[in-house]
């Protein structure tokens, strides 16, 4: 167990270090998120109530697209020089590889989200900081879910020719419950409507259940995915 955690940390550190050097997915994800936010701010001329009603959906639409761009590179960066073979044949257990990659993808995605959030507030005039504690909790929980499911599907599609296309096709249907929950709570938080907030209380619990369920499943299944 301890060796596995050491391996997971080493893999997460390696992924973060290579990403910070190349900035492959960070640049793509961040610029894509900002462009989408800008485009939507020009595309719709919404009233205050309508804007609050779609605010959660808009934010999570951007975050989920950004997430797909980041997790797509997760296992793909192991392909040059057949590094994936060396990783899989090493004594590091499959769950450690998956955990390390999920931690790296999670941290990268959270970085993109935290940079994007002030721009979202600026473009749409939404005071997101009023309930920032709960909002950050939602962001962390939902982002972990996107990262863990995304990394698993990144492993599934790593040898597929059209993996950039295949990954979102496989990923988003699985993420629907997570996204619905995150959107519900986020919209309620932005609206500051107590009735809406209490109605979405269960959504936060659903995010926790989703994370536990898919993390367990991913860590268990990864060896069956990688070694065929």
């Amino acid at each position, binding site marked *: 167990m301890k060796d596995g955690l*050491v391996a997971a940390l080493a893999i997460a550190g*390696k992924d973060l270090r290579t990403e910070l050097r190349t900035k492959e997915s960070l640049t793509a994800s961040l610029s894509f998120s900002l462009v989408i936010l800008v485009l939507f701010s020009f595309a719709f001329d919404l009233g205050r109530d309508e804007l609050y009603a779609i605010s959660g959906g808009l934010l999570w639409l951007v975050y989920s697209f950004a997430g797909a761009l980041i997790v797509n590179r997760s296992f793909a960066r192991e392909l040059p*020089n057949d590094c994936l*073979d060396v990783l899989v*044949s*090493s*004594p590091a257990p499959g769950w450690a590889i998956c955990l390390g990659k999920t931690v790296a993808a999670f941290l990268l995605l959270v970085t993109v989200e935290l940079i994007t959030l002030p721009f979202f507030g600026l473009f749409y005039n939404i005071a997101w900081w009023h309930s920032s504690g709960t909002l950050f909790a939602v962001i962390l929980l939902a982002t972990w879910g996107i990262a863990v499911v995304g990394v698993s599907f990144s492993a599934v599609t790593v040898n597929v020719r059209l993996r950039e296309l295949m990954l979102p096709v496989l990923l988003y249907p699985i993420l629907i419950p997570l996204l619905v929950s995150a959107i519900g709570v986020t919209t309620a938080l932005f609206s500051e409507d107590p009735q809406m907030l209490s109605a979405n209380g269960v959504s936060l619990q659903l995010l926790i259940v989703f994370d536990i369920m898919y993390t367990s499943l991913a860590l268990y299944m990864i060896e069956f995915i990688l070694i*065929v």
Partner: protein
Amino acid sequence: MRAVAADRVWKYFGDYPALRGASLEVEKGACLALLGRNGAGKTTLLRILANLSKPTKGQVTTPDRRKVGYLGHGIGVYDDLSALENLKLFGRLLGVQNPHSTAIQALERVDLARVKDGLAREFSRGMRQRLAVARAFLHEPELLLLDEPFTSLDDRAVAVLQSLLRDARNNGATIVMSTHQIREAMELASDVALLERGKIVFAGPQSPEMLQDPGWLYRTHGEPQA
């Protein structure tokens, strides 16, 4: 004492059987040259032994993964990490006691210590190959699985690899290497196995005929070619 065993191993890719009941035993401390033409199943068998692939049928016995070193077709090092960072990473994954000093020693063995902080992608092809060799030997494995290790190596990398393989053999390591370069392999091999169309058609100790005439083994034990 056996170090590696494959017992009636089959491997299908779709409907195509890449291995057809291949059986093999390698004694501890032996150096086996796994010979065979392209498509014979050498890489598939080595990948199964390296735990990179599962056999469709049959069983393999190998030491704990911590004691296995694998050098495949790719060099298996990260281009955007330095030579030292690469070896420290693999040291941690392989559970070596002191990854930093082990990595430095490994770099000295392959004559890359002076460029330890250079990124792998900035290295010449020969330097990258030597880094790959250092990676495979980093934890002084008991079993070395080498897939065509001499292919496309420059003369310096061949010399480094041969020297490391000799040292490993002297320290009692078991080596299984697939190769087309019979002469280079025979300098080190104690045993030879010939794989043809997914089957081991010959396995036994090296003999003088194999050294004198590289085609002898194929003519004597191989299946006639169409």
